[in-house]
Protein backbone atom coordinates (compact mmCIF):
# COMPACT_ATOMS: atom_id res chain seq x y z
CA UNK A 1 0.00 0.00 0.00
CA UNK A 2 1.44 3.32 -1.15
CA UNK A 3 0.00 6.23 0.85
CA UNK A 4 -0.66 9.42 -1.11
CA UNK A 5 -2.08 12.74 0.00
CA UNK A 6 -5.71 11.67 -0.38
CA UNK A 7 -5.48 8.37 1.46
CA UNK A 8 -3.47 9.99 4.27
CA UNK A 9 -6.01 12.80 4.62
CA UNK A 10 -8.88 10.32 4.68
CA UNK A 11 -7.18 8.37 7.44
CA UNK A 12 -6.47 11.56 9.38
CA UNK A 13 -10.16 12.44 9.17
CA UNK A 14 -11.08 9.03 10.63
CA UNK A 15 -8.51 9.54 13.41
CA UNK A 16 -9.76 13.09 14.10
CA UNK A 17 -6.40 14.65 13.38
CA UNK A 18 -5.80 17.69 11.23
CA UNK A 19 -2.41 17.77 9.52
CA UNK A 20 -0.35 20.52 7.95
CA UNK A 21 1.45 19.97 4.63
CA UNK A 22 4.79 19.15 6.23
CA UNK A 23 3.21 16.53 8.52
CA UNK A 24 1.28 15.10 5.58
CA UNK A 25 4.46 14.64 3.56
CA UNK A 26 6.35 12.84 6.27
CA UNK A 27 3.35 10.72 7.30
CA UNK A 28 2.82 9.53 3.71
CA UNK A 29 6.38 8.28 3.68
CA UNK A 30 6.31 6.77 7.20
CA UNK A 31 2.94 5.06 6.76
CA UNK A 32 4.04 3.50 3.48
CA UNK A 33 7.16 2.16 5.14
CA UNK A 34 5.33 0.84 8.23
CA UNK A 35 2.58 -0.82 6.20
CA UNK A 36 5.11 -2.51 3.95
CA UNK A 37 6.79 -3.81 7.14
CA UNK A 38 3.55 -5.26 8.57
CA UNK A 39 2.51 -6.58 5.16
CA UNK A 40 5.10 -9.37 5.49
CA UNK A 41 2.53 -11.20 7.63
CA UNK A 42 0.41 -11.79 4.54
CA UNK A 43 2.80 -14.59 3.59
CA UNK A 44 1.91 -16.58 6.69
CA UNK A 45 -0.85 -19.12 6.58
CA UNK A 46 -3.21 -18.60 9.53
CA UNK A 47 -6.25 -20.40 8.15
CA UNK A 48 -6.91 -22.80 11.01
CA UNK A 49 -5.67 -20.57 13.83
CA UNK A 50 -7.91 -18.84 16.36
CA UNK A 51 -7.05 -15.25 17.25
CA UNK A 52 -5.71 -14.39 20.73
CA UNK A 53 -7.10 -11.13 22.08
CA UNK A 54 -5.10 -11.28 25.29
CA UNK A 55 -2.77 -13.89 26.67
CA UNK A 56 -4.39 -14.39 30.06
CA UNK A 57 -5.98 -17.80 30.23
CA UNK A 58 -8.97 -16.58 32.22
CA UNK A 59 -12.46 -15.34 31.46
CA UNK A 60 -13.05 -11.63 31.79
CA UNK A 61 -14.21 -10.94 35.31
CA UNK A 62 -17.20 -8.76 36.00
CA UNK A 63 -17.81 -6.92 39.22
CA UNK A 64 -21.17 -7.07 40.94
CA UNK A 65 -23.32 -4.24 39.68
CA UNK A 66 -23.31 -2.16 42.82
CA UNK A 67 -23.41 1.62 42.62
CA UNK A 68 -20.42 3.33 44.16
CA UNK A 69 -19.92 6.99 44.75
CA UNK A 70 -16.17 7.38 44.78
CA UNK A 71 -15.69 10.60 42.86
CA UNK A 72 -17.72 13.67 43.69
CA UNK A 73 -19.07 15.98 41.01
CA UNK A 74 -16.44 18.48 42.10
CA UNK A 75 -13.62 15.92 41.66
CA UNK A 76 -14.92 14.88 38.26
CA UNK A 77 -14.94 18.46 37.09
CA UNK A 78 -11.58 19.39 38.55
CA UNK A 79 -9.77 18.88 35.22
CA UNK A 80 -12.52 20.00 32.88
CA UNK A 81 -11.58 22.70 30.35
CA UNK A 82 -15.05 24.27 30.54
CA UNK A 83 -18.02 23.60 32.82
CA UNK A 84 -21.28 25.18 33.92
CA UNK A 85 -23.78 24.21 36.63
CA UNK A 86 -21.88 20.95 37.24
CA UNK A 87 -21.87 19.86 33.58
CA UNK A 88 -19.21 19.52 30.88
CA UNK A 89 -19.54 22.32 28.34
CA UNK A 90 -18.76 21.73 24.63
CA UNK A 91 -19.45 23.79 21.49
CA UNK A 92 -23.02 23.64 20.23
CA UNK A 93 -23.73 20.27 18.56
CA UNK A 94 -27.30 20.75 17.28
CA UNK A 95 -28.11 23.90 15.36
Amino acid sequence: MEFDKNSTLKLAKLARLSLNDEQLDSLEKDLTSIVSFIDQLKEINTEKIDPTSNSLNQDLILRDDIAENKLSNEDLLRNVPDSELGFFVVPKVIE
Partner: protein
Amino acid sequence: MLKNLTIEGTAKLLKDKKISAFEIANSYIKEIKESKKLNCFITISEEVAFDAAKKTDARISENKKIGLLDGVPLAYKDLFCTNNILTTASSKILSNFTPTYESTVTANCKSQGAVVLGKLNCDEFAMGSTNKTSFYGPVINPWKSSDKDDELVPGGSSGGSAAAVAADLCVASLGTDTGGSIRQPASFTGLVGLKPTYGRVSRWGTVAFASSLDQAGPISKTVEDAAILLEAISGHDNKDSTSSLKANEQFYANLNSSVKGLKIGVPKEYMSDDLPEEIQNFWNDGKKILAKNGAEIVEISLPSTSTALPAYYIIAPAEASSNLSRYDGVKYGLRVQEKNLIDMYESTRSEGFGNEVKRRIMIGTYVLSSGYYDAYYIKAQKIRSIIKNDFDSAFKNVDAIFTPATPNTAFPINREEVDPVQNYLNDIFTVPANLAGLPAISIPFGLDNSGLPIGMQLITNSFEEQMLLNIAKNLQDTLNFNVQPTQWWK
Protein backbone atom coordinates in the same frame (compact mmCIF):
# COMPACT_ATOMS: atom_id res chain seq x y z
CA MET B 1 26.33 6.84 53.51
CA LEU B 2 23.50 7.38 51.06
CA LYS B 3 25.41 6.26 48.01
CA ASN B 4 23.74 3.64 45.88
CA LEU B 5 21.09 2.56 48.38
CA THR B 6 18.93 -0.46 47.65
CA ILE B 7 15.45 -1.09 49.06
CA GLU B 8 16.93 -3.79 51.27
CA GLY B 9 19.71 -1.44 52.42
CA THR B 10 17.34 1.46 53.11
CA ALA B 11 15.00 -0.75 55.10
CA LYS B 12 17.92 -1.91 57.23
CA LEU B 13 19.21 1.63 57.87
CA LEU B 14 15.73 2.67 58.99
CA LYS B 15 15.17 -0.41 61.11
CA ASP B 16 18.52 0.09 62.86
CA LYS B 17 17.66 3.79 63.33
CA LYS B 18 20.89 4.85 61.63
CA ILE B 19 19.09 7.63 59.80
CA SER B 20 15.55 9.00 59.56
CA ALA B 21 13.26 8.56 56.56
CA PHE B 22 13.06 12.34 56.38
CA GLU B 23 16.85 12.68 56.08
CA ILE B 24 16.91 10.08 53.32
CA ALA B 25 14.08 11.77 51.41
CA ASN B 26 15.73 15.16 51.85
CA SER B 27 19.04 13.90 50.51
CA TYR B 28 17.36 12.40 47.42
CA ILE B 29 15.33 15.54 46.72
CA LYS B 30 18.59 17.52 46.87
CA GLU B 31 20.24 15.10 44.40
CA ILE B 32 17.26 15.36 42.04
CA LYS B 33 17.45 19.15 42.05
CA GLU B 34 21.17 19.06 41.34
CA SER B 35 20.71 16.60 38.46
CA LYS B 36 18.16 18.46 36.36
CA LYS B 37 20.49 18.22 33.38
CA LEU B 38 19.47 14.56 32.96
CA ASN B 39 15.80 15.61 32.61
CA CYS B 40 14.59 12.49 34.47
CA PHE B 41 11.78 14.13 36.43
CA ILE B 42 8.73 15.92 35.07
CA THR B 43 7.39 16.63 38.57
CA ILE B 44 9.18 16.60 41.92
CA SER B 45 6.65 15.82 44.67
CA GLU B 46 8.70 17.21 47.52
CA GLU B 47 5.90 17.95 49.98
CA VAL B 48 4.19 14.61 49.48
CA ALA B 49 7.55 12.88 49.93
CA PHE B 50 8.40 14.70 53.15
CA ASP B 51 4.94 14.07 54.52
CA ALA B 52 5.21 10.31 53.88
CA ALA B 53 8.75 10.19 55.28
CA LYS B 54 7.65 11.90 58.49
CA LYS B 55 4.87 9.33 58.86
CA THR B 56 7.44 6.54 58.54
CA ASP B 57 9.60 8.24 61.18
CA ALA B 58 6.59 8.47 63.49
CA ARG B 59 5.90 4.73 63.04
CA ILE B 60 9.53 3.96 63.82
CA SER B 61 9.63 6.14 66.90
CA GLU B 62 6.43 4.48 68.14
CA ASN B 63 8.19 1.13 67.60
CA LYS B 64 5.54 -0.02 65.15
CA LYS B 65 6.46 -2.79 62.75
CA ILE B 66 7.53 -1.35 59.42
CA GLY B 67 7.54 -3.11 56.06
CA LEU B 68 10.35 -3.28 53.52
CA LEU B 69 9.02 -0.34 51.48
CA ASP B 70 8.32 1.88 54.48
CA GLY B 71 10.26 5.15 54.06
CA VAL B 72 11.92 4.02 50.83
CA PRO B 73 12.21 6.80 48.21
CA LEU B 74 10.70 5.65 44.92
CA ALA B 75 9.70 7.48 41.75
CA TYR B 76 7.07 6.56 39.18
CA LYS B 77 6.88 6.77 35.43
CA ASP B 78 4.52 9.64 34.62
CA LEU B 79 2.00 7.15 33.29
CA PHE B 80 0.66 6.16 36.72
CA CYS B 81 -2.17 8.37 37.92
CA THR B 82 -1.26 9.85 41.30
CA ASN B 83 -3.87 11.66 43.37
CA ASN B 84 -3.16 15.42 43.47
CA ILE B 85 0.15 15.01 41.62
CA LEU B 86 0.39 16.12 37.98
CA THR B 87 0.27 13.10 35.60
CA THR B 88 1.16 13.92 32.01
CA ALA B 89 2.09 10.68 30.16
CA SER B 90 4.82 13.02 28.80
CA SER B 91 2.22 14.48 26.46
CA LYS B 92 1.12 18.05 25.87
CA ILE B 93 -2.47 16.83 25.79
CA LEU B 94 -2.25 15.86 29.49
CA SER B 95 0.18 18.60 30.52
CA ASN B 96 -2.45 20.14 32.84
CA PHE B 97 -3.95 16.91 34.21
CA THR B 98 -3.94 16.33 37.97
CA PRO B 99 -5.78 13.09 38.82
CA THR B 100 -8.32 12.94 41.62
CA TYR B 101 -7.59 9.24 42.17
CA GLU B 102 -4.59 6.93 42.57
CA SER B 103 -3.60 4.00 40.33
CA THR B 104 -3.79 0.60 42.04
CA VAL B 105 -0.05 0.06 41.61
CA THR B 106 1.00 3.32 43.26
CA ALA B 107 -1.75 3.00 45.88
CA ASN B 108 -0.21 -0.36 46.84
CA CYS B 109 3.22 1.24 47.29
CA LYS B 110 1.71 4.14 49.20
CA SER B 111 -0.16 1.89 51.62
CA GLN B 112 3.15 0.15 52.34
CA GLY B 113 4.77 3.44 53.31
CA ALA B 114 6.80 4.19 50.16
CA VAL B 115 7.95 7.78 49.73
CA VAL B 116 7.19 9.12 46.24
CA LEU B 117 9.84 11.61 45.12
CA GLY B 118 8.16 12.49 41.85
CA LYS B 119 7.04 11.55 38.37
CA LEU B 120 9.47 10.39 35.73
CA ASN B 121 9.84 11.41 32.12
CA CYS B 122 9.09 8.80 29.43
CA ASP B 123 8.26 8.55 25.75
CA GLU B 124 4.90 10.21 25.01
CA PHE B 125 2.15 7.76 26.01
CA ALA B 126 4.98 5.17 26.35
CA MET B 127 5.43 5.07 22.57
CA GLY B 128 9.11 4.83 21.79
CA SER B 129 12.38 3.18 22.70
CA THR B 130 14.56 6.30 23.03
CA ASN B 131 12.64 8.68 25.35
CA LYS B 132 12.93 11.21 22.53
CA THR B 133 9.18 11.38 21.87
CA SER B 134 8.47 13.07 25.24
CA PHE B 135 6.83 16.52 25.12
CA TYR B 136 9.21 17.41 27.98
CA GLY B 137 12.35 16.66 25.98
CA PRO B 138 14.66 13.65 26.00
CA VAL B 139 16.05 12.05 29.14
CA ILE B 140 19.85 11.83 29.09
CA ASN B 141 21.49 8.53 29.99
CA PRO B 142 23.83 8.89 33.01
CA TRP B 143 26.19 6.51 31.20
CA LYS B 144 28.59 7.94 28.64
CA SER B 145 30.79 6.17 26.17
CA SER B 146 34.45 6.22 27.23
CA ASP B 147 35.65 7.20 23.75
CA LYS B 148 33.05 9.84 22.74
CA ASP B 149 31.40 12.69 24.60
CA ASP B 150 27.94 12.34 23.00
CA GLU B 151 24.89 12.39 25.23
CA LEU B 152 23.17 9.01 24.95
CA VAL B 153 19.55 7.86 25.04
CA PRO B 154 18.53 5.95 28.18
CA GLY B 155 16.24 3.74 26.08
CA GLY B 156 12.51 3.87 26.41
CA SER B 157 9.79 4.20 26.92
CA SER B 158 10.56 4.08 30.69
CA GLY B 159 13.73 6.14 30.08
CA GLY B 160 13.32 8.42 33.09
CA SER B 161 12.57 5.41 35.33
CA ALA B 162 15.86 3.82 34.29
CA ALA B 163 18.05 6.94 34.21
CA ALA B 164 16.82 8.10 37.64
CA VAL B 165 17.79 4.81 39.29
CA ALA B 166 21.12 4.64 37.43
CA ALA B 167 21.94 8.23 38.47
CA ASP B 168 20.90 7.36 42.05
CA LEU B 169 18.06 9.91 42.12
CA CYS B 170 15.73 7.34 43.69
CA VAL B 171 16.25 3.91 45.24
CA ALA B 172 14.09 2.13 42.65
CA SER B 173 11.32 3.06 40.25
CA LEU B 174 8.24 1.81 38.49
CA GLY B 175 7.85 1.68 34.74
CA THR B 176 5.52 0.05 32.25
CA ASP B 177 6.37 -2.44 29.53
CA THR B 178 4.24 -2.87 26.39
CA GLY B 179 6.95 -4.13 24.02
CA GLY B 180 10.14 -3.84 26.07
CA SER B 181 9.73 -0.44 27.73
CA ILE B 182 11.10 -1.64 31.09
CA ARG B 183 13.69 -4.18 29.93
CA GLN B 184 15.35 -2.16 27.14
CA PRO B 185 16.03 0.99 29.23
CA ALA B 186 17.14 -1.19 32.17
CA SER B 187 19.59 -2.84 29.80
CA PHE B 188 20.85 0.55 28.50
CA THR B 189 21.53 1.77 32.06
CA GLY B 190 22.98 -1.31 33.81
CA LEU B 191 19.88 -2.14 35.88
CA VAL B 192 17.41 -4.92 36.59
CA GLY B 193 14.06 -4.48 34.80
CA LEU B 194 11.12 -6.85 35.25
CA LYS B 195 7.99 -7.20 33.15
CA PRO B 196 5.47 -9.38 35.03
CA THR B 197 3.05 -11.91 33.54
CA TYR B 198 0.09 -10.18 31.86
CA GLY B 199 -2.60 -9.98 34.55
CA ARG B 200 -0.20 -10.18 37.51
CA VAL B 201 -0.30 -6.41 38.09
CA SER B 202 -3.44 -4.29 37.88
CA ARG B 203 -3.62 -1.81 35.02
CA TRP B 204 -6.24 0.34 36.76
CA GLY B 205 -5.27 3.99 36.88
CA THR B 206 -2.32 3.55 34.54
CA VAL B 207 -2.62 5.60 31.36
CA ALA B 208 -3.44 2.97 28.71
CA PHE B 209 -1.30 2.42 25.61
CA ALA B 210 -2.07 -1.12 24.36
CA SER B 211 -4.34 -2.73 26.91
CA SER B 212 -3.69 -6.38 25.99
CA LEU B 213 0.09 -5.90 26.33
CA ASP B 214 0.69 -3.25 29.03
CA GLN B 215 2.16 -4.36 32.36
CA ALA B 216 3.71 -2.29 35.13
CA GLY B 217 6.93 -3.46 36.76
CA PRO B 218 10.03 -2.43 38.69
CA ILE B 219 13.39 -1.03 37.60
CA SER B 220 15.94 -1.58 40.35
CA LYS B 221 19.61 -2.00 41.20
CA THR B 222 19.25 -5.61 42.35
CA VAL B 223 17.12 -8.70 41.77
CA GLU B 224 16.19 -8.64 45.47
CA ASP B 225 14.68 -5.16 45.06
CA ALA B 226 12.80 -6.31 41.95
CA ALA B 227 11.30 -9.13 44.04
CA ILE B 228 10.28 -6.73 46.83
CA LEU B 229 8.61 -4.30 44.42
CA LEU B 230 6.91 -6.99 42.36
CA GLU B 231 5.40 -8.41 45.53
CA ALA B 232 4.26 -4.93 46.56
CA ILE B 233 2.44 -4.11 43.33
CA SER B 234 0.96 -7.54 42.44
CA GLY B 235 -2.40 -9.03 43.25
CA HIS B 236 -5.97 -9.26 42.06
CA ASP B 237 -7.84 -6.02 41.55
CA ASN B 238 -11.54 -6.05 40.75
CA LYS B 239 -11.19 -2.74 38.93
CA ASP B 240 -9.20 -4.45 36.12
CA SER B 241 -11.17 -7.11 34.24
CA THR B 242 -7.94 -8.80 33.07
CA SER B 243 -6.42 -8.91 36.55
CA SER B 244 -5.46 -12.46 37.46
CA LEU B 245 -7.25 -14.27 40.29
CA LYS B 246 -4.03 -16.05 41.26
CA ALA B 247 -2.90 -15.36 44.81
CA ASN B 248 0.02 -13.03 45.33
CA GLU B 249 3.34 -14.64 46.24
CA GLN B 250 6.19 -13.88 48.60
CA PHE B 251 8.79 -13.39 45.91
CA TYR B 252 11.37 -11.84 48.21
CA ALA B 253 11.16 -14.32 51.08
CA ASN B 254 11.24 -17.21 48.61
CA LEU B 255 14.27 -16.04 46.63
CA ASN B 256 16.63 -18.94 46.10
CA SER B 257 19.50 -18.64 43.70
CA SER B 258 20.00 -22.30 42.87
CA VAL B 259 19.71 -23.27 39.20
CA LYS B 260 20.73 -26.90 39.74
CA GLY B 261 18.80 -29.24 37.48
CA LEU B 262 17.01 -26.47 35.58
CA LYS B 263 16.83 -26.65 31.81
CA ILE B 264 17.46 -23.34 30.12
CA GLY B 265 16.65 -22.87 26.46
CA VAL B 266 18.55 -20.72 24.00
CA PRO B 267 16.46 -19.95 20.91
CA LYS B 268 18.40 -20.43 17.71
CA GLU B 269 16.27 -17.81 15.93
CA TYR B 270 17.76 -15.13 18.22
CA MET B 271 21.27 -15.87 17.00
CA SER B 272 22.23 -13.52 14.23
CA ASP B 273 25.39 -12.33 12.54
CA ASP B 274 24.03 -8.80 12.95
CA LEU B 275 24.27 -9.08 16.73
CA PRO B 276 27.28 -7.04 17.95
CA GLU B 277 30.14 -9.31 18.98
CA GLU B 278 30.28 -8.01 22.53
CA ILE B 279 26.59 -8.80 23.13
CA GLN B 280 27.20 -12.22 21.60
CA ASN B 281 30.14 -12.74 23.99
CA PHE B 282 28.18 -11.83 27.11
CA TRP B 283 25.40 -14.14 25.96
CA ASN B 284 27.92 -16.99 25.67
CA ASP B 285 29.38 -16.11 29.08
CA GLY B 286 25.89 -16.32 30.57
CA LYS B 287 25.32 -19.78 29.11
CA LYS B 288 28.66 -20.93 30.59
CA ILE B 289 27.83 -19.50 34.02
CA LEU B 290 24.43 -21.16 34.11
CA ALA B 291 25.93 -24.48 32.99
CA LYS B 292 28.73 -24.23 35.57
CA ASN B 293 26.17 -23.49 38.29
CA GLY B 294 24.29 -26.67 37.48
CA ALA B 295 21.74 -25.80 34.80
CA GLU B 296 21.50 -27.60 31.50
CA ILE B 297 21.66 -25.36 28.42
CA VAL B 298 19.65 -26.60 25.44
CA GLU B 299 19.13 -25.11 22.03
CA ILE B 300 15.45 -24.56 21.30
CA SER B 301 13.43 -23.23 18.39
CA LEU B 302 10.84 -20.46 18.42
CA PRO B 303 10.04 -20.68 14.69
CA SER B 304 7.75 -17.66 14.41
CA THR B 305 10.10 -15.17 16.08
CA SER B 306 10.38 -13.04 12.95
CA THR B 307 6.62 -12.46 12.88
CA ALA B 308 6.52 -10.95 16.38
CA LEU B 309 7.55 -7.39 15.47
CA PRO B 310 5.15 -6.91 12.55
CA ALA B 311 2.31 -8.44 14.62
CA TYR B 312 3.18 -6.12 17.50
CA TYR B 313 3.17 -3.08 15.21
CA ILE B 314 -0.39 -3.94 14.22
CA ILE B 315 -1.80 -4.84 17.65
CA ALA B 316 -0.15 -2.07 19.69
CA PRO B 317 -1.13 0.83 17.39
CA ALA B 318 -4.65 -0.61 16.95
CA GLU B 319 -5.24 -0.68 20.69
CA ALA B 320 -3.51 2.69 21.09
CA SER B 321 -5.69 4.40 18.49
CA SER B 322 -8.74 3.09 20.30
CA ASN B 323 -7.45 4.01 23.80
CA LEU B 324 -6.33 7.48 22.73
CA SER B 325 -9.69 8.36 21.22
CA ARG B 326 -10.64 9.52 24.73
CA TYR B 327 -8.38 12.58 24.37
CA ASP B 328 -10.86 14.93 22.75
CA GLY B 329 -10.66 18.06 24.89
CA VAL B 330 -14.04 17.48 26.54
CA LYS B 331 -13.53 16.25 30.09
CA TYR B 332 -9.86 16.81 30.92
CA GLY B 333 -6.54 17.74 29.41
CA LEU B 334 -5.82 20.25 26.69
CA ARG B 335 -8.69 21.85 24.74
CA VAL B 336 -8.21 23.97 21.64
CA GLN B 337 -11.43 25.96 21.45
CA GLU B 338 -13.24 25.93 18.09
CA LYS B 339 -16.72 26.90 16.92
CA ASN B 340 -17.93 23.34 16.36
CA LEU B 341 -17.32 20.06 18.13
CA ILE B 342 -15.53 18.14 15.35
CA ASP B 343 -13.12 21.02 14.76
CA MET B 344 -12.49 21.15 18.50
CA TYR B 345 -11.61 17.43 18.54
CA GLU B 346 -9.29 17.74 15.56
CA SER B 347 -7.51 20.89 16.69
CA THR B 348 -7.12 19.60 20.25
CA ARG B 349 -5.64 16.28 19.13
CA SER B 350 -3.40 17.82 16.50
CA GLU B 351 -2.02 20.34 18.97
CA GLY B 352 -1.84 17.90 21.87
CA PHE B 353 -0.20 14.81 20.34
CA GLY B 354 3.40 14.56 19.11
CA ASN B 355 4.52 13.01 15.83
CA GLU B 356 5.15 9.42 16.98
CA VAL B 357 1.77 9.28 18.72
CA LYS B 358 0.07 10.62 15.58
CA ARG B 359 1.89 8.02 13.47
CA ARG B 360 0.68 5.20 15.67
CA ILE B 361 -2.88 6.51 15.85
CA MET B 362 -2.90 6.67 12.05
CA ILE B 363 -1.56 3.11 11.66
CA GLY B 364 -3.99 1.86 14.29
CA THR B 365 -6.89 3.58 12.57
CA TYR B 366 -5.79 2.05 9.25
CA VAL B 367 -5.56 -1.55 10.50
CA LEU B 368 -8.92 -1.26 12.26
CA SER B 369 -10.74 0.44 9.41
CA SER B 370 -13.49 -1.21 7.44
CA GLY B 371 -12.06 -3.59 4.85
CA TYR B 372 -8.68 -3.94 6.60
CA TYR B 373 -9.73 -5.22 10.03
CA ASP B 374 -9.56 -8.93 9.15
CA ALA B 375 -6.49 -8.58 6.94
CA TYR B 376 -4.45 -6.83 9.61
CA TYR B 377 -5.89 -6.85 13.10
CA ILE B 378 -7.40 -10.34 13.19
CA LYS B 379 -4.41 -11.66 11.24
CA ALA B 380 -2.04 -10.23 13.84
CA GLN B 381 -4.08 -11.79 16.64
CA LYS B 382 -3.78 -15.15 14.90
CA ILE B 383 -0.03 -14.68 14.59
CA ARG B 384 -0.08 -13.98 18.29
CA SER B 385 -1.63 -17.41 18.88
CA ILE B 386 1.17 -18.99 16.83
CA ILE B 387 3.82 -17.14 18.85
CA LYS B 388 2.17 -18.21 22.09
CA ASN B 389 2.08 -21.82 20.86
CA ASP B 390 5.81 -21.61 20.12
CA PHE B 391 6.48 -20.65 23.72
CA ASP B 392 4.02 -23.25 25.07
CA SER B 393 5.89 -25.96 23.16
CA ALA B 394 9.26 -24.65 24.31
CA PHE B 395 8.20 -24.64 27.96
CA LYS B 396 7.29 -28.33 27.72
CA ASN B 397 11.04 -28.95 27.50
CA VAL B 398 12.70 -26.07 29.30
CA ASP B 399 12.18 -24.09 32.51
CA ALA B 400 13.39 -20.75 31.18
CA ILE B 401 14.64 -19.06 28.03
CA PHE B 402 17.85 -17.02 27.92
CA THR B 403 18.45 -14.30 25.28
CA PRO B 404 20.06 -10.87 24.89
CA ALA B 405 17.78 -8.04 26.08
CA THR B 406 18.60 -5.67 23.23
CA PRO B 407 20.36 -5.85 19.85
CA ASN B 408 22.46 -2.76 20.70
CA THR B 409 23.75 -0.58 23.53
CA ALA B 410 22.77 3.05 24.25
CA PHE B 411 23.21 5.30 21.19
CA PRO B 412 23.59 9.08 20.81
CA ILE B 413 20.49 11.24 21.31
CA ASN B 414 21.26 13.24 18.20
CA ARG B 415 21.87 10.21 16.01
CA GLU B 416 20.47 11.01 12.61
CA GLU B 417 16.72 10.37 12.49
CA VAL B 418 16.10 6.95 11.04
CA ASP B 419 13.06 5.47 9.38
CA PRO B 420 10.46 4.62 12.11
CA VAL B 421 10.72 0.93 11.22
CA GLN B 422 14.47 1.01 12.06
CA ASN B 423 13.60 2.33 15.53
CA TYR B 424 11.01 -0.40 15.96
CA LEU B 425 13.78 -3.01 15.59
CA ASN B 426 15.12 -1.96 19.02
CA ASP B 427 12.32 -4.12 20.48
CA ILE B 428 13.18 -7.29 18.59
CA PHE B 429 14.13 -9.43 21.63
CA THR B 430 11.57 -8.01 24.04
CA VAL B 431 8.30 -7.92 22.06
CA PRO B 432 7.62 -11.71 21.95
CA ALA B 433 7.18 -11.91 25.77
CA ASN B 434 4.53 -9.17 25.62
CA LEU B 435 2.60 -10.86 22.83
CA ALA B 436 2.65 -14.16 24.73
CA GLY B 437 1.99 -12.42 28.09
CA LEU B 438 5.08 -14.01 29.68
CA PRO B 439 7.20 -12.64 32.54
CA ALA B 440 10.68 -11.51 31.52
CA ILE B 441 13.60 -9.81 33.21
CA SER B 442 16.61 -7.88 31.99
CA ILE B 443 19.79 -8.27 34.06
CA PRO B 444 22.98 -6.20 33.76
CA PHE B 445 25.87 -8.33 32.52
CA GLY B 446 28.79 -5.98 32.07
CA LEU B 447 30.17 -3.15 29.98
CA ASP B 448 31.14 -3.18 26.33
CA ASN B 449 34.51 -1.86 25.09
CA SER B 450 33.15 1.70 25.18
CA GLY B 451 32.10 1.28 28.80
CA LEU B 452 28.36 1.00 28.12
CA PRO B 453 26.08 -1.49 29.92
CA ILE B 454 24.82 -4.65 28.23
CA GLY B 455 21.84 -6.59 29.56
CA MET B 456 20.61 -10.12 29.04
CA GLN B 457 17.03 -11.36 29.23
CA LEU B 458 15.37 -14.34 30.90
CA ILE B 459 11.81 -15.42 30.08
CA THR B 460 9.77 -18.03 31.96
CA ASN B 461 6.29 -19.47 31.61
CA SER B 462 3.26 -17.48 32.81
CA PHE B 463 3.18 -16.78 36.56
CA GLU B 464 6.64 -18.29 37.09
CA GLU B 465 8.17 -15.01 38.26
CA GLN B 466 9.70 -16.79 41.25
CA MET B 467 11.81 -19.00 39.01
CA LEU B 468 12.63 -15.99 36.83
CA LEU B 469 13.90 -14.06 39.86
CA ASN B 470 15.80 -17.07 41.19
CA ILE B 471 17.72 -17.60 37.95
CA ALA B 472 18.34 -13.86 37.68
CA LYS B 473 19.73 -13.87 41.22
CA ASN B 474 22.04 -16.74 40.36
CA LEU B 475 23.45 -14.75 37.45
CA GLN B 476 23.64 -11.56 39.50
CA ASP B 477 25.50 -13.23 42.36
CA THR B 478 27.95 -14.93 40.01
CA LEU B 479 28.59 -11.89 37.79
CA ASN B 480 28.84 -9.46 40.69
CA PHE B 481 28.28 -6.50 38.32
CA ASN B 482 28.52 -3.43 40.50
CA VAL B 483 29.56 -0.40 38.47
CA GLN B 484 27.93 3.02 38.53
CA PRO B 485 28.31 5.82 36.01
CA THR B 486 30.59 8.73 36.93
CA GLN B 487 28.61 11.81 37.97
CA TRP B 488 29.52 14.03 35.01
CA TRP B 489 26.19 15.85 35.07
CA LYS B 490 26.62 17.69 38.39
